[in-house]
């Protein structure tokens, strides 16, 4: 087509109704308009319905008094719904903070087992993965809590108190712990002193490592330094740290003093860790397999032991591949912790359930619940992205 022809047959600009750029924007505005209108209708319906049923339309109910008991919060003190949500949030955090390291450790072990050249070790790994992956996590929670934990823990009336300081019962597992009200500041201060000691020892060990080539063993030395610093501070301040033993209360129904670990918490955390570990194991196996075989063979050629080969050669490289799928598993364990609602461990979803049983608007209570989970998701994504960026290969 020559320029002359173009001038004759087609105008330089197509008409508006055939201009792709105009049509694109029209289409987009139409879609956004429809979605916006639908959302507005839903919002309008919600406001109308809430007003019709006499429920508040705002978030003022957060200041109302929560009329339900939360284990771990004093029943006598009246606390607001806001505080109930906050304690539930912390309880969810407790599951995640223990569950993620547990499932990672177990998953790495199982994943490596599945690559062993011993038939039986491989078989155990495979059976573990296939068993846990193919049964719903809720069923595992029920089995762990209702069958394994509750049926095996003694009744509180059986009076099982090892060393007179621990309590083991189906009402909870009491262990001696620092009294948080009496010496929280001392406790935090001592931990701070210990951490300073750890940092100092690590700097020294790194220097030794750089100058003499001896292994730095920062973790081991740091741990010892932490304990020594803590002990010195404890005795120097005149036995400043005191702990409360855990005992059964006068009425014989409760555990007093120390830290009380609730059986549902143990059941939930273990079940979630076992289930998620089966997924982590598959990720670990896949990532190790994705690493060039020559890496492992080279490590063997320079006479590294199996442990050293995994610790220094294979796992650091595999970790780089693992991060995105691992992060998604950590998100899953966070979201699955909401299943605590089925075994009455009072984390944030259970709080929602209890809140919505009162005269509070379920819609708003739910929005807060979802917002809380979004903060977890966002947090885990941010951390994963940080590691992903730091560990990604520098490509030229």
């Amino acid at each position: 087509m020559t320029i002359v022809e173009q001038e004759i047959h087609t105008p330089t600009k197509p008409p508006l109704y055939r201009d792709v750029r105009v049509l694109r924007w029209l289409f987009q505005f139409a879609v956004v308009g429809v979605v916006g209108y639908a959302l507005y209708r839903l919002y309008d319906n919600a406001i109308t319905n809430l007003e019709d049923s006499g429920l508040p339309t705002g978030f003022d109910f957060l200041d109302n008094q929560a009329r339900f008991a939360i284990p771990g919060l004093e029943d006598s003190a009246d606390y607001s719904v806001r505080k109930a949500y906050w304690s539930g949030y912390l309880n969810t955090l407790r599951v995640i903070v223990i569950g993620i390291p547990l499932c990672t450790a177990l998953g790495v072990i199982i994943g490596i087992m599945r690559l062993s050249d011993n038939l039986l070790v491989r078989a155990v790994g495979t059976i573990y993965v296939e068993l846990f992956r193919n049964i719903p996590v809720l069923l595992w929670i029920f089995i762990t809590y209702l069958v394994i934990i509750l049926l095996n823990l003694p009744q509180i009336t059986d009076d099982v108190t090892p060393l007179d300081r621990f309590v083991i019962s189906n009402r909870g597992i009491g262990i001696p712990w620092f009294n948080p009200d009496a010496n929280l500041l001392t406790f935090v201060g001592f931990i701070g002193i210990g951490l300073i000691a750890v940092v100092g020892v690590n700097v020294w060990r790194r220097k030794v490592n750089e100058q003499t080539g001896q292994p730095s063993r920062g973790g081991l030395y740091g741990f010892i330094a932490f304990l020594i610093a803590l002990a010195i501070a404890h005795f120097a301040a005149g036995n400043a740290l005191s702990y409360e033993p855990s005992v059964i209360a006068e009425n014989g129904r409760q555990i007093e003093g120390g830290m009380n670990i609730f059986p549902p918490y143990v059941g939930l955390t273990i079940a979630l860790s076992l289930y998620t570990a089966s997924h982590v194991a598959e990720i670990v196996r896949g990532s190790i397999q994705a690493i060039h075989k020559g890496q492992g063979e080279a490590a063997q050629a320079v006479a590294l032991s199996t442990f050293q080969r995994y610790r220094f050669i294979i796992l650091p490289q595999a970790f780089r591949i693992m991060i995105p799928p691992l992060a998604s598993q950590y998100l899953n364990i966070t979201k699955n912790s909401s299943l605590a609602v089925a075994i009455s461990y009072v984390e944030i979803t259970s709080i929602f359930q209890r809140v919505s049983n009162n005269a509070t608007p379920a819609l708003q209570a739910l929005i807060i619940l979802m917002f809380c989970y979004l903060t977890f998701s966002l947090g885990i994504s941010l951390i994963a992205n940080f590691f992903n960026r730091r560990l990604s290969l520098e490509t030229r």
Partner: protein
Amino acid sequence: MAPDGQAAPPGIAGGGELGTAIAAEPPPRRGAGQGIGTIFRDNLFKDAKNSILTLIFGGVILFVLFKTFNYVFITARWEVIYNGPLEFYMVGKDFGRTGISFEMLWAGIYTAVLAMGIGSGLGYDPEAPPMRRGARMAMIGGPLVGIVFILSMTRTITPTLVTLGVAVAMVVGNRIGRRLPQPIRRRSGWILLAMTALAFGLITDFTPSNIDDFGGLLLTIVVAFAGIALSFPIGVIMALARRSTFPLIRPLAVGYIELVRGVPLISLLFMGQFAIGFLFPPDANIPGPIFRAIIMITLFSGAYVAEVVRGGLQSVPAGQIEAGKALGLSPFTITRQIVLPQALRNSIPALIGQFISLLKDVSLLVIIGLQEMLGVVDVVLARREFVNQGYVPEAYAFVGTIYWTLCFSMSRAAQRLETRLGVGTR
């Protein structure tokens, strides 16, 4: 021989999400053409460390096997299953109220299974590498043990015969699917859709509101299937929107997907039970609890399907789109005729995986008080003859076996399909 700990995977460990690189290049079969003694020595007693591991893990395996056999055959009191209402576990306690006959239900199930068989037969590729013996044994043996265990609880011959019929329907469908002539094959999508719709109609006696009285395994499967089927169009649209170049529409799709993926399913189910009523117009009929659950599960699954389809879209090489443009096709035609067929074909294994995880997630319905299998356990254990007598382990073991059999066989099928379709290897 492969070095210590770095061995090639065993026969049963092929496939997997990240393990496809292995499937592309199968290692030589261990001990092929050698005596059984060699196999034993290489796998179990290669050196001192290996022998110690063998002894330790052999002991663990023997102990667990002994405990399991002891439990299944001696200590377990299975009367909670076979003397109790086994029917509840399968169809729920309110199924009688629907007035659907079991013949009707089985007709529906057979139609669905036939459709599944035809679908599996369509993907048959005679040139695909044959399965390794170990993989085939695991794929058939595992579910077989589960099915035998489940059927042993029925104590009558009818369920066994009807279940055998399911296997026959599957095989027949597979053979039909393999031999379909090309013109029909091209429209096979519509045929399968029609068969699925017919199956759904038969199962619900052509009155969808009957679902409200479903329970047990039937409810689990119907909800999971409805969830994946209804969420599929949502997922495709959302994936296309997320990959599109429309600056106003993309954030909508991203927002929906990330919002839903960021919250647990149970919070969405709570929304369906407690809050969705507020969103309907004041004078509208609010559907029953199971329908509301299906709505929320569809929304939930839509976001995950969208990510699966997005992965499929990304696997289509850019050259395909460029070729379409070079031919002067419109963007719509390129998407419809070139990109989507390849993308969807590549995402079939991951979609099956999504279906499996949905099937497991349906167990959460027990928390909102619906009678799926775990809910049935509560109902059965509340009966006078079983209450407070410690029948919990048996009931959960039975339900767990059902779930395991379903999920394991489907995940194996998905892995097999993945190797066959060559996803990720080209």
